[in-house]
C-alpha cells in the first residue's frame, strides 16, 4: 500500500503547486478570479451543472445547506483555527440563534426577520461570553468536553421546556421580508411574482436548455423555492468573510495567533490572552448565531431539537479541520464538502454515512494539514522538509568521508 500512498502524496503536491501558482498571480488577476467564483457561486443553483447537481433532492435546498455550513465553519474557524480553542459544542450557539429567531418571530412575538437578526446575534454573543468566562480558564481538551456538555445542555433544555416548543419544535417562523410584488393565492402565475424572474438551466445530457416553467422570482422568500434564501445566506457569508479578513490581519488576529502558538509566551509579551480568547469565543458564537438565525427562517420555517444534535457539532469541527484549520478559504471549502457530500450521495442512501466516515479518515491521513492549509503552516512544513534534507545530506557526506 506504500506506493498507493505515494500516488496520493503526489496528488497532494500537485494541488499545493496549483495553490502556489494562484498565490503568485498579481492582485488584479486574483480579484478577477475571485469575482468570477463569486458570480459562479450565486448562479450555481440556476445553472444546475450535470454531475454536481443532486438529482434526488432540490438542488437549491442543498446549496442553502452548503452555504449555511460554510458560514458556520467560518465562525468556528475563528475559535479553532485562529485562537486554537477546541469547541465541540458549537451547535449550541447555532441553536441559540435559531431559537431566538423562532421565539421572537413566531412563538412569542411576530417581529420581522431583519429586526430579529441583530437581536439573535447579540443574544448568542452574550451566551458565548457567559459560557466562555468561566470555562476558558480551563485548558485544551478539558475545554472540548465542557463545550460539548454545553451543546447538550442547550439541546436538552429546548427539548424539555414547553416555552421553547419542546420536542415538537416551532413552526411558521417568519421568512425574510420579500422585495417586489408577492400576490398570495393558489393560481398565481409565477411571472406576477417578484421584481423579475430568472429561468433556470436544464441539461439534456451535455446540451443546456432554458426552463421557463420553473423560474425563480427575484427576492421572493416563499416556501416553494430555496434559491433566494441561498442568495441571502451567500451574501451574509461574503460579508462575514470580508470582516474575518480585516480582523485576522489586525492586532486582534495577531494576538489570537500568538495565544494559539504559546499561551505563556504570549502572556509574557503582554497579550491579555484570556480577554482575547473570550473575544474569539464570543465572535465565533455570534457568527454561529447568525447562521442559526438564517437556518430557522429558511424555506421550511420550522425547527425542532432534532436539528441540533451533538453529531452536527462534530461535523462542524470536521469541516474546519479538513478544510485547513486557520485558513478562511479552507474553512469554507471544508464546510461546503461536509454539507454537500452526504446529499450528493443520497442515491446510495443507506451507505452514505459509511462512505462519508471512510472519506473523512482517508482525507485526514492523506492531508493532515487540511485541504487548504494556512500559508504559515505550509511555510513551516517546507522549512522542516528543508532542514531534514540538509541534515540527511550532511550525514551522507560524513558517511562518504568515513
Amino acid at each position, binding site marked *: 500500500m506504500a506506493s*498507493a500512498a505515494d500516488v496520493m502524496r503526489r496528488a497532494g503536491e500537485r494541488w499545493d503547486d496549483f495553490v502556489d501558482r494562484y498565490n503568485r498571480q498579481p492582485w488584479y488577476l486574483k480579484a478577477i478570479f475571485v469575482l468570477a467564483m463569486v458570480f459562479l457561486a450565486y448562479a450555481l443553483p440556476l445553472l444546475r451543472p450535470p454531475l454536481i447537481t443532486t438529482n434526488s433532492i432540490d438542488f437549491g435546498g442543498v446549496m442553502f445547506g452548503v452555504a449555511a455550513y460554510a458560514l458556520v465553519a467560518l465562525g468556528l474557524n475563528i475559535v479553532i483555527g485562529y485562537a486554537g480553542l477546541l469547541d465541540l459544542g458549537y451547535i449550541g450557539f447555532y441553536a441559540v440563534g435559531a431559537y431566538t429567531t423562532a421565539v421572537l418571530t413566531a412563538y412569542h412575538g411576530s417581529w420581522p426577520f431583519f429586526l430579529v437578526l441583530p437581536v439573535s446575534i447579540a443574544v448568542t454573543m452574550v451566551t458565548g461570553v457567559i459560557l466562555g468566562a*468561566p470555562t476558558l480558564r480551563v485548558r485544551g481538551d478539558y475545554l472540548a468536553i465542557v463545550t460539548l*456538555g454545553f451543546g447538550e445542555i442547550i439541546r436538552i433544555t429546548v427539548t424539555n421546556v414547553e416555552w421553547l416548543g419542546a420536542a415538537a419544535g416551532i413552526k411558521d417562523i417568519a421568512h425574510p421580508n420579500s422585495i417586489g410584488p408577492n400576490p398570495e393565492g393558489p393560481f398565481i402565475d409565477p411571472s406576477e411574482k417578484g421584481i423579475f424572474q430568472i429561468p433556470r438551466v436544464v441539461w439534456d445530457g451535455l446540451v443546456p436548455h432554458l426552463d421557463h416553467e420553473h423560474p425563480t422570482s427575484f427576492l421572493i422568500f416563499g416556501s416553494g423555492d430555496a434559491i433566494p434564501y441561498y442568495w441571502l445566506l451567500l451574501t451574509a457569508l461574503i460579508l462575514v468573510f470580508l470582516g474575518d479578513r480585516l480582523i485576522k490581519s489586525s492586532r486582534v488576529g495577531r494576538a489570537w495567533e500568538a495565544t494559539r502558538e504559546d499561551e505563556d509566551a504570549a502572556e509574557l509579551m503582554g497579550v491579555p490572552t484570556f480577554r482575547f480568547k473570550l473575544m474569539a469565543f464570543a465572535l465565533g458564537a455570534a457568527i454561529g448565531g447568525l447562521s442559526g438565525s438564517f437556518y430557522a427562517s429558511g424555506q421550511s420555517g420550522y425547527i425542532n431539537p432534532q436539528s441540533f444534535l451533538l453529531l452536527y457539532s462534530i461535523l462542524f469541527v470536521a469541516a474546519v479541520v479538513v478544510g485547513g484549520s486557520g485558513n478562511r478559504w479552507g474553512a469554507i471549502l471544508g464546510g461546503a464538502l461536509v454539507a454537500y457530500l452526504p446529499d450528493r450521495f443520497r442515491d446510495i442512501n443507506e451507505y452514505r*454515512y459509511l462512505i462519508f466516515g471512510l472519506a473523512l479518515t482517508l482525507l485526514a*491521513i492523506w492531508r*493532515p494539514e487540511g485541504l487548504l492549509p494556512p500559508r504559515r503552516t505550509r511555510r513551516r512544513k517546507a522549512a522542516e522538509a528543508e532542514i531534514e534534507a540538509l541534515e540527511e545530506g550532511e550525514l551522507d557526506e560524513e558517511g562518504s568521508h568515513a
Partner: protein
Amino acid sequence: MHFQLLFDNILAFTIGGLVFGSIYALVALGYTMVYGVLQLINFAHSEVFMYGTFAVAWTFVFVHGTDQVTWSLWRALPVLLLALLAAMLLSASIALLLERVAYRPLLNKNAPKLIALISAIGASFALSEAMGVRDLLSDLLPGMLVSVLIGFVIATVIVFVIATRQQAATAGEEPTGLVESARAVRSGPIVVVSIVLAYMICKTLGLLSPINESVGLREKLIDYVRKARDIYTNPVTIRPHRLFEIGGYRVSDVDIVVVASALLMMVALDLFVRRTKFGRGIRAVAQDPESAALMGVNSTRVIQVTFLVGGLMAGAAATLYMLRIGSTRQNSGFILGVKAFTAAVLGGIGNLRGALLGGLVLGVAESYGSALFGSKWQDVVAFVLLVLILLVRPSGLLGESLGKARA
C-alpha cells in the same frame, strides 16, 4: 425538585448510580489510557464498546437461539462468560484495527493533534454505520469476497510476470530467486487496481448477483443481522434476583456482579500498569515519549498494548451493560462514550484511579439528578457537575497524568 423522593430513597439512588457508574468507569479507562499515552481523545472508543455489546447479544443467539426467555443469573452464567470472552475479543480487535488504520499513519507523520481527532471521528462514523447497514452489507459480502479473491489471483500473476521480466533484464548480475524478486515489486497499487478491476469485470459479467443469491448470506445470518437499524435485543433476559435489602433498595445479584466485576477489572488493570514490564513501558511513554524511546521502549508496541487494554476493558463494560440493559443498537455507543469521556475528565484524564472515581461520581450524580429533576434532566445534571468541578479543580478530581503512578 423532589427532595423528599431523593432523601427517602437515598441509598437506592446511590446504589443504582454506582451500578451505572462502574460501567462508565470501565469505558472511561479506554479514553484515559489513550489520552495518557498519546494526548489524544480517542473518539472512536465508543464504537469499540458498541461492537462489544453486539458480540454479547450474538453469543446468546448463537448458544441459545432466538426464543425470548428469562433466565436467572446463575443459569446464564456459563453463556455470559463465553459472551464476555467474545466481547473482549471483538472489542480488542476493533481497537487494534482502529490504532492501525486511523492513528498510526498520522502518528508516523507527526501530524497535528486535532487531525487525529478528525480521523477518529471518521472511523467512528464508519464503524457505527457499518453496523447500521450490516443487513445490506451481508447481501453483498459473498460477491465482494469473490472479487477480492479473483483480484488477488490477478495481482499475483501480474507481480510474477513483472518479476520474471526483471530477472530476465538483470540476468547475469546476481542470481536471485523468483520469489525474492517478486517481493521487491511494489505490489500495493497492483493489488488495489486488480481488486477494483475484478469487481468491475464480475459486475459487468453479471456474476455478482447469482453468487450473492446462491450463498444467501443474509438469510443464513438473519438472526444476527435482523433489521440493522432497529434495537437488537438479547433473546435471554436475565432476571435480577433479590439478595438483600438496604434502606428500601433491593440489592440484586446483577448489581453486585456488575459492580464487583468492574472493580476487579480496575484492580487488575492498576496492577498491570504498576507492576508489569509493559505497564512500565506505558508509564514511560506517558511521561516522556522521546526519553522512553531513547531508553529502548518500543513506543509503537506500547501504543498497541494501550489500545488493546482499552478494548478489553470496553468489552468487559459491554458485557456488564448487556447484563443490566439487555439491548443495544448501532448508535448506543455514542452517548455512553460521551458520558465515559466526561467521567474520565471528571476524575482527571490520564489517571486510572481518576477514571474509576469519575465514573462512580458521575453515575451517582446522574442518579440523584434524575431523582431531583426528573430523568429527562439527567444529562444536564451530569454536565453541570462537570463544569463546576472543573472550575474548582481545573485538572479533574485526582489530577492528570498516567505517568506519575508510582511503581
